[in-house]
């Protein structure tokens, strides 16, 4: 294994541990955050199935965003759906044999990258061009967009401009997953840049606003059933107090 490969191996092990542990910690925190009151955004579903459907449409279609702002929705949705296809396409580097459905969507992921990058460009344009939004944008907002755009563009360059050795890349990645370090990482500049940016994103993910990805599932205005009248809402921590008082 080359020196560069060792460096990237260590980087990716570290990034993976930080991402998994950080996300796990955050999700646990979200899960344990008390929801003392029923506060679903009205109109809200009255059954649990309804809630699952509501969260699903929110996650897949960004319904609330659509209702509030069409432009942000357009760019945001384009970006996220593009990203989804692109990520699905990347599963081919981590599975052997490659799953059939990944092979099937693989070509579409190629072009989804354009939607993804266009969406990002739109979102970033909004932060730069709309004065009100520019005023409230923090450096970290720009950093996230820059990282994602950098990842998207470097990735697309490898598909559409200058090809890299993806067989070597897959052997390296499968090696990392199996703790077999006999395959070096191909040293294509574009690939190294792409992977470096990805590692950085993985590392800062658990401490960034990108946490809205797991966070959306824990939003009480979204995931609560509108049954306050039928069933008394009692948060677990309040249940203890309730029991004490009853004694």
């Amino acid at each position, binding site marked *: 294994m080359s020196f560069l490969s060792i460096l990237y191996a260590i980087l990716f092990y570290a990034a993976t541990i930080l991402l*998994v*542990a950080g996300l*796990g*910690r955050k999700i*646990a925190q979200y899960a*344990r955050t008390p929801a003392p009151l029923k506060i679903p955004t009205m109109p809200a579903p009255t059954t649990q199935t309804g809630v699952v459907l509501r969260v699903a449409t929110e996650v897949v279609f960004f319904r609330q965003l659509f209702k509030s702002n069409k432009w942000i929705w357009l760019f945001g949705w384009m970006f996220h759906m593009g990203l989804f296809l692109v990520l699905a396409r990347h599963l*081919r*580097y981590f599975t*052997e*044999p*490659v799953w059939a459905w*990944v*092979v099937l969507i*693989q*070509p579409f992921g190629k072009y989804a990258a354009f939607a993804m990058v266009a969406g990002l460009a739109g979102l970033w344009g909004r932060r730069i061009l709309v004065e009100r939004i520019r005023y409230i944008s923090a450096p970290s907002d720009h950093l996230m967009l820059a990282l994602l755009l950098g990842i998207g563009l470097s990735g697309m360059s490898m598909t559409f401009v*200058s*090809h*890299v*050795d*993806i*067989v*070597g890349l*897959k*052997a390296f990645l*499968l*090696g990392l*997953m*199996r*703790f*077999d370090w*006999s*395959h070096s990482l191909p040293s*294509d500049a574009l690939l190294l840049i792409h992977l470096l940016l990805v590692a950085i994103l993985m590392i800062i993910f658990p401490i960034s606003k990108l946490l809205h990805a797991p966070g959306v599932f824990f939003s009480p205005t979204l995931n609560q059933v509108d049954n306050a009248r039928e069933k008394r809402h009692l948060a677990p921590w309040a249940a203890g107090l309730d029991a004490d008082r009853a004694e």
Partner: protein
Amino acid sequence: MRKSQRFNILFGLAMAAVLLSGSAAVFAGVPVPLLPEPVKSAVEGEESCVLPEDEMRRVHMDRLKHQRDDTMHEGVRTSRFSLKECISCHVTKNDAGEKVSVKSREHFCNACHAYTGVTLDCWDCHASQPDGGQ
């Protein structure tokens, strides 16, 4: 307090499970495409392929496409980057000594293409084995 402790134990167990399942695969080794040896050297006097392997992995399709357009539209019929030559040189035979078609994962092209999940449509029209597999 008790609850957070319980969580930490669970979380630690989960992480350990992930690591263990990973290390269980250590003994499986890393799967890589197995390529058949070329039958002959395409460029006489040179040991390598028409280009160094390292380069071929990256640009083979660009070269093939260039050659394809030249041959199709201008009748240029040089052999160096001709698909036909790739196939006849890197002909793949199975254990029984028969030439295999691109349907098999042993096939020279398919070995890497299946590995990386890249579908090929060359073989919708072209023969994937020299002399119709005879």
